[in-house]
C-alpha cells in the first residue's frame, strides 16, 4: 500500500513538473510605501493616477514587470544608471505578465502575481522590478526607444537593485501559493519613481552650466 502511495505521489509530482513555473507577488502598496510615482520635467513627484491601464499623457500606459535570473547573475543596472539587460539562459527574463493597473487609490498597486515561466517554482530566484511607459513589450525595447518614463528598484536608493526571492509553485504537488516580493526600503521592493532618463547632451549642458557658475562665483 505504501508503494502505491509513493507511486501516486511521484506520478503527481512528475505531472506537475511538466508545467513547472514559479510565481512571486507584488504586495499591496500602503500609504508612504511601495507606491508607484512619476516625476515631471519640473521635478515634482506625483502618485501615478488610477486606471486600467493607468496612463500618463503622451507617455502612454504603465508597464511594471519582474525580471528574474538564477542566483548571482550580474545586473548591469546601477542606482543611477539604467542599462540594457543581457537576456537568454544566462541573463534576465521578463515575467510572463506585466502589470498595467493602478488601484484602488493613486499610486497603489493591486496585489499582482507575476509568473516566472522558466523558473521551476518553490525555489529562489534573483529578482528586480522594472517599470516603463508606452506599448513596449519589454525593458530593453523601451530603453532603446528612449521616449518613455523609466524606473527600477534601487533607483534613488529606494529598495534593492536586485535580491534573492522565494517563489511559489502553482503547479506543484500540492500547489504552493505565490511568494510575496521582499518588501524593504533597502533590499527589496519599496516603490518606484518613473522619470525620463536625461540624454547625454543634457548631462553635458548641466555640467557646463555648473562649471560656469563655479567660475563666476570664484571671480566674485
Amino acid at each position, binding site marked *: *500500500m505504501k508503494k502505491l502511495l509513493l507511486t501516486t505521489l511521484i506520478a503527481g509530482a512528475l505531472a506537475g513538473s511538466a508545467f513547472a513555473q514559479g510565481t512571486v507577488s507584488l*504586495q499591496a502598496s500602503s*500609504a508612504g510605501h511601495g507606491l508607484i510615482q512619476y516625476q515631471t520635467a519640473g521635478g515634482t513627484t506625483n502618485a501615478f493616477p488610477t486606471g486600467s491601464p493607468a496612463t500618463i499623457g503622451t507617455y502612454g500606459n504603465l508597464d511594471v514587470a519582474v525580471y528574474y535570473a538564477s542566483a548571482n547573475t550580474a545586473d548591469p543596472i546601477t542606482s543611477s544608471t539604467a542599462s540594457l539587460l543581457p537576456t537568454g539562459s544566462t541573463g534576465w527574463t521578463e515575467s510572463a505578465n506585466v502589470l498595467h493597473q493602478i488601484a484602488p487609490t493613486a499610486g497603489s498597486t493591486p496585489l499582482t502575481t507575476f509568473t516566472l515561466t522558466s523558473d521551476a517554482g518553490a525555489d529562489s530566484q534573483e529578482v528586480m522590478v522594472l517599470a516603463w511607459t508606452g506599448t513596449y513589450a519589454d525593458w530593453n525595447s523601451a530603453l532603446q526607444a528612449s521616449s518613455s518614463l523609466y524606473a527600477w528598484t534601487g533607483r534613488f536608493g529606494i529598495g534593492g537593485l536586485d535580491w534573492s526571492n522565494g517563489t*511559489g509553485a502553482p503547479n506543484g504537488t500540492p500547489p504552493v501559493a505565490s511568494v510575496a516580493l521582499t518588501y524593504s526600503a533597502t533590499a527589496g521592493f519599496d516603490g518606484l519613481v518613473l522619470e525620463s532618463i536625461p540624454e547625454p547632451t543634457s548631462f553635458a549642458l548641466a555640467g557646463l552650466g555648473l562649471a560656469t557658475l563655479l567660475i563666476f562665483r570664484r571671480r566674485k
Partner: protein
Amino acid sequence: MAQNVYSLNVVGYVNQTVTANTWYMWGNPLNAVGTDNGTESVLTNLVSTAPSPQPNDWANSVVYGFVSGSYTAGDAYYPNYGWFPGNVAGGGADLTPGNGFFFYPATNGTVTFVGQVTTNNSFHLAGPAGWSLVSSAFPATNTLTAMGLIGVPNDVVYRFNKAAFGGYDQGTANYPSYGWYDGDPTAGPGDTTTAGPVINVGEGIFYQNNNATVTWTQNFTIQ
C-alpha cells in the same frame, strides 16, 4: 387567516484566532447571505490584539482563492479602504462555503465568520489530475467521508501545515477496496479507519482528483 411562518435558516458565528504573517488554508463556514461572498462581505469582522484595535491593523493582509487549477490574483487589505478587489465580479476570491482559500493576516487577532449555515453543497472536483481547494460548507468537524468526500482510488487529499510556508502533510490517498489511507500504522485487513483524517471547522484542503471529473454532495440535517 394568519399563517404560521417557519424558518429553517440557522445563523451563527465561528471565531478563528490568527497569528501575524502566517499562512492559513481555510474555508468560510457560514454563508454571507445576500452577498457574493467576496472578501469585503465575508472578512469584515476583524479584531486585532493591539491595545486599541483599528481596521488598519489589517493593512497588507492577503487572500488567495483557487479556481480551475489556478490561484486568483489575490485580494489585499488597504489602509483606509478595506479589501480590494473585494468582490468576485471584480476578480476577487470567491469565499462561498465549500471553497477553500489562503489567508495571510498582517496582525495578530481574531477573524469572526458570521452568516447562515449551509446544509446542502456540491464539491465539483475537476479531473483527471485536477486540483481543487475545498472545505466543508457545513460548520462541523468531520472526516472526509462524513463531509461528503467519498473518494475514488488514486485520489489524494493534502492538509496544510502552517508551521512552514509551502508545507503540507504527506497526503491521504484513496485505495481500491479500502478507502482513505492516512498513514495509520495499523492499516490493513480489519482496519476500519478508512474515513480519512478529521477536518476542522473552517479548514481548507487540497483535493487531487486523479480520475474523471466528479461531483460529491453534502447533505446535513440540523436537529
